[in-house]
């Protein structure tokens, strides 16, 4: 079946099978390799993407269900090769190690800065709790999110 998706601002029309996951269509049919599988049961959150403004685990979404939707991945956060403040905050605060879960955390952080500018530590933790990282112990990821929020509140990166 033919579906159309807007991925990182670009409309893509793609033929998919009814049993294909959004995760696999993004990776294998559209070449968006930052979206990766971690557990395929919706637990680890590595495959997180933003669908119509919502954080979604793409291993538990059929591509067919996403027909017509607007999808953002980490590749869509940079503009003209310039990384977004959220991305820079992760570099600044050592918010990543092996990098496998990083796109999921960066997208989650991006969503937080767009939707919860004044989030408390507890609220940040509740959202970040959806994604698993085995390397960092989360501290520097949380620091990255807080730094990005601070930049956002203060109107830009200093």
């Amino acid at each position, binding site marked *: 079946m033919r579906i159309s998706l807007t991925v990182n601002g670009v409309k893509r029309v793609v033929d998919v099978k009814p049993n294909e996951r959004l995760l696999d269509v993004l990776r294998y049919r559209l070449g968006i390799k930052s979206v990766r599988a971690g557990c395929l049961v*919706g637990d680890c*959150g590595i495959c997180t993407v933003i669908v119509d403004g919502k*954080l979604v685990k793409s291993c538990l979404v059929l591509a067919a269900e996403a027909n017509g939707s607007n999808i953002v991945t980490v590749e869509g956060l940079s503009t003209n090769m310039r990384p977004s403040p959220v991305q820079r905050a992760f570099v600044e605060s050592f918010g990543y190690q092996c990098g496998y879960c990083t796109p999921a955390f960066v997208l989650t952080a991006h969503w937080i800065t767009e939707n919860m500018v004044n989030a408390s530590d507890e609220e940040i933790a509740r959202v970040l709790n959806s994604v698993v990282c085995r390397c960092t112990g989360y501290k520097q990821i949380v620091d990255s999110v807080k730094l990005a929020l601070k930049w956002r509140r203060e109107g830009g990166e200093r």
Partner: protein
Amino acid sequence: MSLILRTTLPDFDYLLPSSLDELLALKAKYGERAAVIAGGTVLLNLIRLGFRYDYVIDIKGVRELSAIEYREGKGLVIGAAVTLRDLENNEVVRDKYRVLWDAVRQIGDFHLRNRATIGGNICNPTLQADTIAPLAVLGASIEISSMRGSRRVAIWELVKEGGGLLLDPDEILTRIYIPEPPKGSRGAYFKVWWIAGIAALAANIDNPRERIVRIAYSFAPSPKLVEGVERIFRQEKPLKVLIGDAINYIKTIVTPPSDARASREYREHLVEFGTAYLLRKLLGVEV
């Protein structure tokens, strides 16, 4: 005999009806060969790990199933495809149906609640039916629809031993009806992973004769409503004493299962002390 641990989903056709009539017609036509997908957070796991369907019918195209409606005095109507996020963000649910709200925000995680639906949690409780115990203490009923018509029954009547709903192959859960809760009622949900959930609702705490205390348990995935607790709390004794009486009564009624996730012994501990914790919190009794 061999063991295959699949990555891809087996073949099925995807159907997206745009009206309830169309949906019911498809379900009537394909029956057990068709699964209903709302959030997909449970169904797609089941399909990958072995359940086989020829058709997956997406009910998100049927608008009315994604609606939450509240009418003062009449109560709440929740479409089966309403996401847990929508319930979590709904002020009426938060303020008036606290026990449900408290349970919903403990299901899955933030991201999953953007997809997972209340209908899915009721129909596919392979992990833990965290919404059923709260709905039970709220006295909810569910609407089951098919081409043959609709019926509305107390949620309790259709819950299967071991989870899921007793539905005919052509039937679909369409709506959840929750009556107006008792005035000034409070509610809370106590949860330990997929081992146990306890839902409690209380109202008119200071007046023994009209005092309402309801409590229900969900042991993955079998829920249980304890009748009789309400009677205990109608007695004119200090609340502290009544909590003790209630727990001792509950311990004789509730026999939690043993499974791979937890022993009966541990669940019994949670029943005793989790209930104590929850009731004290709800009734405002200091330790």
